[in-house]
């Protein structure tokens, strides 16, 4: 396969340019932090617990697309597939902090962990209180005993939605933290890749997959999963992924869940719906009730073809925050 064709200008400027596009599209709801690669909400309520999300770029609309009402208050954006730097994180923390501390939610990767930790230390020196929730929903990445070795993938979506609601309603950082941790701990995902995405600056694909093979469990940057095999039909693949997710938490009959089918980039909406249909059938057979379903491109890996399935087990509190209205570039709910 040749290098992917893309609509780009200077590939070194992609993050800066996409932020300009995002801010322009949000018509005043967001602003860009001093020409730097971070977005911040224009109106953040005084005395609000603030929510910061972030990570490497290349996963659009994650993360800056989730800065908005009842969602996050700001997002520092790293270069493509690279965690943001501590100083950018600290400056974003300062811009969104309103005296009640800041919850930081991001995916569990060595680079993110280190950079956000450094930022948290610097913020503390500057008198800003932070708490951290690392999302580690990827069942494929490690067995349950090594939970903290798991990567954060599309589960970010649910944790951010719930944490955003909680940060809008609760006036105490510890409480927001508790709710976000609960969302994180009840969320499990599994991905499948059909074809690689690429890095704009090099134009190189992040991995190579033979024409007739898929990789089950592949990560959001193309990190290897648990099995490479010949492609089979959508239902069989969806069933395998769903079973791995269900067994992991585990989810059981009578549970109520939220379902997310997330597009990794280039997969058609048609395929997403076919897979979502199968997950509904499987959960119904197991007596698991789907409270709501989201299907779309929320955490992508450039033009990677493939999708992930995420389930979050709900209780009354999680349901409340999940169902709250929200508005941002990537996600609006009435």
């Amino acid at each position, binding site marked *: 396969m040749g290098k992917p064709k893309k609509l780009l200008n200077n590939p070194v400027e992609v993050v800066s340019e996409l932020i300009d596009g995002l801010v322009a599209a949000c018509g005043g709801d967001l602003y860009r932090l001093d020409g730097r690669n971070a977005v911040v909400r224009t109106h953040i309520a005084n005395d609000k617990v603030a929510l910061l999300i972030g990570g*490497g770029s290349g996963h659009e609309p994650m993360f800056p697309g989730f800065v908005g009402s009842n969602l996050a208050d700001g997002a520092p954006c*790293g*270069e*493509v*597939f*690279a*965690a*943001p*730097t*501590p*100083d950018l994180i600290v400056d974003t923390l300062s811009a969104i902090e309103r005296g009640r501390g800041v919850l930081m939610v991001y995916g569990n*990767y*060595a*680079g993110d*962990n*280190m*950079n956000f*930790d*450094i930022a948290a230390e610097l913020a503390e020196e500057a008198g800003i209180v932070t708490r951290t929730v690392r999302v580690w929903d990827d069942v*494929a*990445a*490690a067995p349950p005993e090594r939970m903290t*070795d798991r*990567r954060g993938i599309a589960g970010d979506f649910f944790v951010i939605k719930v944490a955003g609601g909680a940060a809008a309603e609760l006036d105490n950082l510890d409480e927001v933290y508790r709710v976000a941790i609960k969302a994180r701990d009840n969320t499990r995902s599994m991905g499948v890749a059909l074809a690689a995405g690429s*890095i704009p*600056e*090099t134009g*190189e694909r*992040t*991995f190579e997959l033979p024409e007739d093979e898929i990789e089950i*469990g592949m*990560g959001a*940057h*193309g*990190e*290897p*999963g648990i099995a490479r095999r010949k492609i089979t039909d959508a239902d069989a693949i969806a069933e395998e992924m769903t079973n791995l997710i269900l067994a992991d938490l585990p989810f059981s009959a009578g549970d109520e869940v939220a379902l997310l089918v997330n597009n990794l980039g280039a997969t058609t909406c048609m395929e997403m719906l076919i897979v979502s249909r199968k997950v509904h059938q499987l959960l119904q057979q197991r007596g698991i009730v789907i409270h709501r379903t989201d299907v779309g491109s929320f955490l992508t890996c450039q033009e990677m073809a493939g999708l992930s399935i995420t389930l979050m087990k709900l209780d009354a509190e999680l349901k409340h925050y999940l169902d709250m209205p929200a508005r941002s570039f990537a996600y609006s709910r009435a």
Partner: protein
Amino acid sequence: MYDTLTPSQARDMLSAVAQHLVANVDMLTEVDQAIGDGDHGIGMRRGFAAVEEAMATIDPESVSKVFKAAGTTIMAKTGGAAGAVFGTLFRAGSAALEGRPALDAEGLAGFLLLGLEGVEKRGGAQPGQKTMIDALAPASVAAEAAIASGLVVAVRNATDAAKAGVEATKGMIATTGKARTLGERSLGHPDPGAVSMSLILEAMRDYIAA
């Protein structure tokens, strides 16, 4: 051939280190494509191109200041795991140089040791997990053992040890970083950060030996 470096020589050495990294960007990217997410080279370029700029304007008051400035620049410009790790290496390592008028073998060994401790504390990784630590830790031991032989030998031995460490990473299964889930598939490939670590020492060695 230098047996000690003045602050401005230390600055020139770090400038040479930066150039050496930038010259090897494509190779580093390829190494990261094999077992990571393919961005290590472009990340190191962001950081070390900025180090070169910073060295061009800094007032070389002391070696510790020069090393710390390099670390701060790497931290602010690189991003990703590499930014935190190599930023920490230089920032934490610079503490060993504080109060020293010049960089000598003891200073180099101290830099590597405190840098290693800083990196281990920052990321929680240990030797054997297929990271830059597997080049840095043996380099630190080698420099320590060669203090009595002076800077030229210390940096040469440290470089050799780092290179051996890079080779050793080929036989390791990654348990941290983006290669972590590769399992046995990470075998046979060196760790990108370890390669960068050995390039840093190599450039120091060449400057000091010149």
